[in-house]
């Protein structure tokens, strides 16, 4: 399928859903910080890759798909859950990118490089790995 931006999907999300995302994002970040403060960086680092908002995210995908199907006069629950499964597959590819981000961060900072260049390289590693993983899966 061709890559494109679908601005209509932004209108499907209600202000309350945007507020919940912000709230959960803040809570997950705060929790990760408190765990690191209490248990140290080894345990704390695990939670930098904690999928805290993922269940809420795919639940929204399912809900919005059901609403679209209902508007089209269909039931759509099975296909909505199928779409949520596709979103989860994408997340598993993104998580490979997350591992590449973490590896770059670890090696870069441990070698004494400055934070900003390391962060830029880590971001590039996430993007390249995720994109390559997605492209490879699409071609399979």
């Amino acid at each position, binding site marked *: *399928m061709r*890559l494109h931006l679908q601005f209509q999907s932004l209108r*499907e999300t209600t202000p309350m859903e945007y507020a919940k*995302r*912000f*709230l*959960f*994002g*803040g*809570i*997950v*970040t*705060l929790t990760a*910080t*408190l765990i*690191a403060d209490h248990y140290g*960086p*080894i345990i*704390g*680092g*695990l*939670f*930098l*890759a904690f*999928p805290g*908002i*993922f269940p*809420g995210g*795919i*639940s929204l995908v399912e809900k919005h798909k059901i609403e679209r199907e209902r508007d089209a006069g269909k039931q759509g*629950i099975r296909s909505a*859950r*199928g*779409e*949520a*499964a*596709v*979103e*989860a*597959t*994408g*997340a*598993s*590819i*993104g*998580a490979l*990118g*997350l*591992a590449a981000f*973490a*590896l770059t*961060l*670890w*090696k870069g*900072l*441990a070698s004494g490089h400055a*934070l900003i260049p390391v*962060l830029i390289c880590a971001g590039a590693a996430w993007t390249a790995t*995720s994109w390559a993983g*997605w492209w490879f899966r699409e071609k399979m």
Partner: protein
Amino acid sequence: MHLLLRFIIGGIVVSLFAVLGDLIKPESLGGVFAAAPTIALATIVLTVHKQGAGYVAIEGRSMIAGAIAFVLYASAVSFVLMRYRTKSLATAASLMIVWFATAAGLWAIWLRG
């Protein structure tokens, strides 16, 4: 005060990546943004300022284990949803045990030493 700042930055970063994930189609590519390094991006600069780069380097090593756990967790969620078409929120929440078990296992065999 720094906790409030982290809460606000975390909320903003997570929301931005979620919007990107909504915008980008096909769904499989949008899903990639569900595993963006949001928490790390929201916290790393402040943590380096407070604890130093060595501390964040250690966090980065552990984050690899967390990310591997995320790969297995998201794959399990995808498989169960595709195979059984169960409710996505309940499926993703109940399978969170996969993330915790994998992360704990990797901590025990790799990070703890």
